[in-house]
């Protein structure tokens, strides 16, 4: 995955810092709550939402089970329609392929449609190393790029910014990248959008190569589908002479008919709209255009091999789970150390990076994200809000618990859990431990030592009762004596 997150500390430290940032918390709280309400309203108004959600899950599961067959069908269809298909096993290979294709056109710059897959592989950085500049054209992505920042949300990468911060970024940085911001730019959202439009319009008209991802790929016809709100995608997909799409292999759907389900699920879950403003579909190369499809594995087939973890591959990147997550709302997206933040990131990142497990410790050299990845499955209170809103019914808490079992455990915790298990194995041991606690209760300090101090930093501990329930039951015959 993208190199920008290398060397980040584990989630709890990142989150602790973010919680202190009141501006960030205010921005996130406002943004996620607005979009959360909109989603609930438009999902709630469909009487068959539960059936749609189930259909989405079934279609994705069926596709994943037959992925090999559908991928070959797609390759054939795309080729027949004049496109070229490239297979990339990992990020390095995908980046090499894309850079080579751009170099072959003789261009040194590209425009980009917002795409998670290209962020996942760190494409912009890889292109920069080969002297190619990638210009983001999605408004939020532009804000992130101009601000030398990292994305913190799947749908709204600059969700951590408010409009006065955005105005500052535009005023200071737009000129370095192209057309500068207009004089006297205010933080009125319309003025900011207009500044971005003027800045980007020049870029669209001057670009010969575009790079996109795709929301869906249709195996039967070889069609790619992009859903967006701003029209920048449509510009990128149609104007340049060469179009390169980098798409994860799990984005397949067997037929056009299946799209019906997802064109309802995605916009309603994502932006909280009944329908997104722009849906672009294209099949192979248009006349006078060259089209390349780079199919990206980058850890996906390994995820597919895990019976519990594989449901993460159903994800359609709607970001509904981020918007309802109480942990995301307080920790912010950057704390997750990956382009996939929030609940889906907590289950997808460790699986895609194949690190953060006991097994990978022996198999892989120490990676800079190892401790971070090991902490991600614990970045959740298991409240289940993510599962409830997920349009393809990914049981994120189930996968989190599954990944926790594979994560390396601190020694003190391991001993503590083993001791607790030993006590719970025999009721007499439990009773003895309770009596000991009852006798020592007056000596319990107000602040607990070691890792448990995390509890008493902000909360009192409950009074230990003199007698446990089981001892009361035994002594009084269940209250009858």
């Amino acid at each position, binding site marked *: 995955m993208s190199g920008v997150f290398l060397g980040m500390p584990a*989630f*709890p430290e990142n*989150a*602790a810092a973010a*919680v202190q940032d009141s501006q960030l918390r205010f921005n996130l709280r406002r943004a996620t709550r607005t979009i959360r309400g909109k989603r609930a309203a438009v999902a709630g108004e469909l009487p068959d939402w539960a059936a749609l959600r189930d259909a989405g899950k079934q279609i994705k599961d069926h596709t994943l089970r037959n992925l090999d067959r559908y991928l070959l069908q797609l390759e054939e269809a795309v080729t027949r329609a004049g496109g070229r298909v490239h297979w990339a096993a990992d990020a390095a290979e995908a980046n090499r392929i894309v850079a080579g294709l751009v170099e072959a056109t003789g261009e040194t710059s590209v425009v980009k449609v917002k795409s998670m897959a290209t962020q996942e592989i760190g494409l912009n950085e890889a292109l920069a190393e080969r002297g190619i500049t990638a210009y983001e054209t999605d408004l939020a992505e532009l804000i992130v790029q101009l601000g030398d920042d990292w994305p913190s949300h799947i749908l709204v990468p600059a969700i951590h910014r408010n409009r006065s911060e955005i105005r500052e970024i535009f005023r200071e940085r737009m000129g370095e990248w192209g057309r500068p911001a207009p004089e006297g730019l205010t933080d009125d959202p319309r003025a900011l959008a207009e500044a971005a439009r003027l800045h980007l319009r020049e870029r669209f008209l001057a670009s010969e190569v575009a790079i996109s991802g795709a929301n869906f790929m249709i195996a039967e016809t070889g069609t790619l589908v992009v859903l967006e709100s701003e029209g920048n995608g449509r510009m990128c997909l149609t104007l340049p002479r060469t179009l390169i799409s980098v798409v994860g292999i799990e984005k397949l759907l067997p037929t056009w008919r299946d799209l019906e389900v997802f064109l309802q699920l995605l916009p309603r879950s994502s932006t909280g709209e009944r329908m997104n403003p722009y849906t672009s579909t294209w099949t192979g190369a248009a006349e006078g255009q060259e089209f390349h499809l780079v199919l990206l594995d980058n850890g996906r087939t390994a995820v597919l091999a895990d019976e519990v973890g594989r449901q993460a591959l159903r994800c359609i990147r709607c970001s509904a789970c981020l918007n309802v997550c*109480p*942990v995301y709302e*307080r*920790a912010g997206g950057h704390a997750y150390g990956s382009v996939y933040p929030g609940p889906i990131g907590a289950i997808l990142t460790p699986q895609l990076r194949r690190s953060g497990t006991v097994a990978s410790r022996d198999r892989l050299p120490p990676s800079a994200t190892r401790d971070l990845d090991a902490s991600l*499955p*614990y*970045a*959740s*209170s*298991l*409240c*289940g*809000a993510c*599962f*409830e809103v997920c349009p393809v019914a990914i049981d994120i808490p189930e996968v989190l*618990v599954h990944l*926790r*079992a*594979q*994560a390396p*455990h601190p020694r003190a*915790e391991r001993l503590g*859990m083993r001791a*607790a*298990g030993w*006590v*719970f*194995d025999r*009721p007499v041991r*439990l009773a003895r*431990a*309770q009596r000991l606690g009852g006798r020592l209760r007056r000596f319990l300090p107000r602040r607990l030592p070691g*890792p448990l101090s*995390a*509890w008493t*930093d*902000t*909360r*009192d501990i*409950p*009074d*230990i*009762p*003199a*007698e*446990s*329930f*089981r001892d*009361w*039951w*035994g002594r*009084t015959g*269940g*209250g*009858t004596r």
Partner: protein
Amino acid sequence: MRVALFITCVNDTLFPGTGRAVVTLLRRLGCEVAFPEAQTCCGQMHLNTGYPQEATRLARHFTDVFAGYDAVVTPSGSCAAMVREQYPRLARAAPGPSFADAVAETAPKVHDLPEFLVDVLGVTDVGASFPHRVAYHPTCHSLRGLRLGDRPARLLGGVRGLELVPLPGAEECCGFGGTFAVKNPAVSAAMCADKVHNVMATGAEVLCAADNSCLMHIGGTLRRQRAGVRVMHLAEILAATEDDPGTGRGAKAGTGSGTGAGTGAAR
């Protein structure tokens, strides 16, 4: 009806008053209550922290202990959800059919208290009296795991003198999450701060829930802040009557009355 009480390790050790309240309440409603003394812990903490082997061992023990009862009642939504939702998964991963059979036999009979009262006994008026302003926190596993819906509210609605005040953002997690509270203390505390803020905004005297783990977390924060709001388990409110207006911790509770209130409340 022969009902077994699964007290849970947390209530057994820290909140015996809640257990006594459940016994009082169920007897008042005509149930014969058994307490299988071999019971210990459902294994939730082990499973959710990443120790499925220990959890499976405790789950096997649980199904041994509770086999053969008409119903198992527990005053903890998250422990009920653990047995009903997670045990079948543990059974699928465990070798041999005997554990899976035991789970299929026992798990569906395990009920959270409000669910047992409303769905199995078919009562919403349990004859309780509790003349106080109460806010109810639904807790995540009751709400999204067991889907208890408005059952607790209906039960509280049947309590004489009780004024139920709506809690803003009720469906949001309080930030307890078991070991989450210790592993991610900053986020956990921030979530609880917002919960406490919402509780205070209601002007309630008592914050009620059907899970003492969440109440220990919220109540511990309330008490640290000297907020003057008590926390009480739903069972304790439902057990309270005009004759026993105290805390409803079991008329024949004998010793320990008062200590059981240690749900971290400001008293």
